[in-house]
């Protein structure tokens, strides 16, 4: 096509400039809604620029103009053809009380699988220490070195310290716990990309450690101490890791696509908001668990009676079950869901 480039550019430039301006406004303020007239104009400008690009593509000597038009068309295309929800105003309370529990329930089967794998790990860890006490030193990682000895001795030592650890130590310990647990949860999610193998291994290993330590304390006759120490933070921390595992398994499910007719790209696109919601929820839970573990779980009887700690843990667990199981259920329509984080 022989095109009078000079005339073409002169005629089209005002439209391109107008489209560029509209796009800049839309990109700066993503919450702004266009009126019907503005939308029509925007669409017209987009189509006109598309037509311009189609024309200039056939013209050999205008790489710069073509590049400019490609950039305009790609930006406008993203704005016009996006069908997923627009960025909405931050609503943390709605997200916490509705989006998070709804997302959890929507993928509850992955949670049960995550729990089952952890339970198998617990069983393995429990049996390992029941039949061979020496397995403790082999299985337990460095960070659990304080559980390597005799549980009864540790309990006696903890109960002798009437004042409990210093506030300074507890503060940094709390931060360490949060960081370590959140990192572990992120890995449980990220390893879902290995078609879930990495997530399953991580959950199983986590279960092995929990099972091993629990059975070790029970066998030493320290069940009350174990419950008092583990329940206050464990009832939040362990479900948080299970939910992170759930997120990893959702990712794996999208990759495998068993029984689904959509493409892998469409499946991954569909689960991304849910995974984001779950991992933010997990982070929130682990911050809470970190605070409780440092400032509550580390105090033992007689400073803090075990029945108080166990009751506190049970109450937390009941509230968590209520929260995840019942929160965000719309009374008028049980199927109504709030949009996840986009």
């Amino acid at each position: 096509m022989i095109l009078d480039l000079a005339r073409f550019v002169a005629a089209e430039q005002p439209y391109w400039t107008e489209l560029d301006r509209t796009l800049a406004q839309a990109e700066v303020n993503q919450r702004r809604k266009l009126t019907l007239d503005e939308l029509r104009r925007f669409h017209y400008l987009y189509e006109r620029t598309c037509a311009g690009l189609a024309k200039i593509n056939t013209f050999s000597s205008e790489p710069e103009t073509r590049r400019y038009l490609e950039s305009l068309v790609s930006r406008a295309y993203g704005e016009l053809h996006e069908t997923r929800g627009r960025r909405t105003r931050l609503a943390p309370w709605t997200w916490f009380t509705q989006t998070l529990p709804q997302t959890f329930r929507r993928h509850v089967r992955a949670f049960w699988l995550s729990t089952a794998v952890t339970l198998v790990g617990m069983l393995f860890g429990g049996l390992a220490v029941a039949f061979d006490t020496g397995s403790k030193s082999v299985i337990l990682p460095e960070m659990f070195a304080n559980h390597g000895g005799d549980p009864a001795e540790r309990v006696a030592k903890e109960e002798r310290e009437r004042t409990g650890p210093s506030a300074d130590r507890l503060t940094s310990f709390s931060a360490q716990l949060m960081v370590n647990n959140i990192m572990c949860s992120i890995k449980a999610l990220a390893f879902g990309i290995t078609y879930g193998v990495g997530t399953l291994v991580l959950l199983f290993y986590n279960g092995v450690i929990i099972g091993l330590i629990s059975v070790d304390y029970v066998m030493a006759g320290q069940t009350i101490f174990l419950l008092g120490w583990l329940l206050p933070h464990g009832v939040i921390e362990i479900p948080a890791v299970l939910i992170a595992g759930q997120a990893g398994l959702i990712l794996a499910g999208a990759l495998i696509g068993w029984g689904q007719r959509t493409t892998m790209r469409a499946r991954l696109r569909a689960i991304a908001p849910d995974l984001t919601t779950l991992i933010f929820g997990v982070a929130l839970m682990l911050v809470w668990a970190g605070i409780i573990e440092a400032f509550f779980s580390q105090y033992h009887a007689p400073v803090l009676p075990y029945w108080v700690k166990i009751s506190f843990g049970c109450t937390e667990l009941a509230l968590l079950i209520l929260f995840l199981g019942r929160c965000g259920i719309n009374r008028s329509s049980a199927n109504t869901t709030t949009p996840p984080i986009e």
Partner: protein
Amino acid sequence: MSRTNTLLIRTPEGVVFSQLLAGPMTRFLAWLVDWFCLLGLTIAAMIIMSLFGFISAGIAQAMGLLTQFVLMIGYSIVLEWFWHGQTIGKRMLRLRVVDAQGLRLKFSQVVMRNLLRFADMLPVLYLVGGIACLMSRRSQRLGDFAANTIVIRIPKVSEPNLDQLLVGKFNSLRGHPHLEARLRQRVCAAEAAAAVQALARRDLLEPQARIELFAEFAAHFRDKVQFPPEATDGIADEQFVRNVVDSLYRSGRGEKKNASATANLAATP
């Protein structure tokens, strides 16, 4: 699966536009820049947090640890979200994260691709991510794959300053508009751009190299369209190339004005 450095997206309107994909090396350099930025930020944050040591050593340590963690996780997420797919390193190397289908980048996509770094960085120095990037047709690491994103290069739109290159020169090809039109048909965009670049940088070339380069260009353009001898005889190869570029970029009447119009356009980001 063959690799490509360009992703073509066809709109429902039937128009095709291209995105230049960033290769693993460019991305590694951007990551290196980000890593140094992150290191600087962490050191600065640690110094500030150490001031809490006057209140309590435990609080200072806890704040330092949490800040370091938040920076490590949040740096890329926050910057890519607020800078529309760019971090400091990506800005410096003119890279941008975009949706793989050309749609708007979502917050969940930014979060996903950054959290999956922990799988990509295994076992050391992004080995898994690097291999995935090399094997992927669209240069995607695992995080990009899961989040449905790609990293593109944003080429600098440099304006050929034709007024400066061609001022005051008589163009002997102007007398043959039908051949000029044929020239515009036959010369592709890359060839035209190469000729402009050669003219723009001609003073940087060694004299002998300059002669040889423009001789090659002139021979190439002469092969494309045969101009009559009166239009080409007696002019140097370099002048011939200048005439060709002038003919390519300034078609029709009012050319000067419109060359500037094109210049303004291309300069717009």
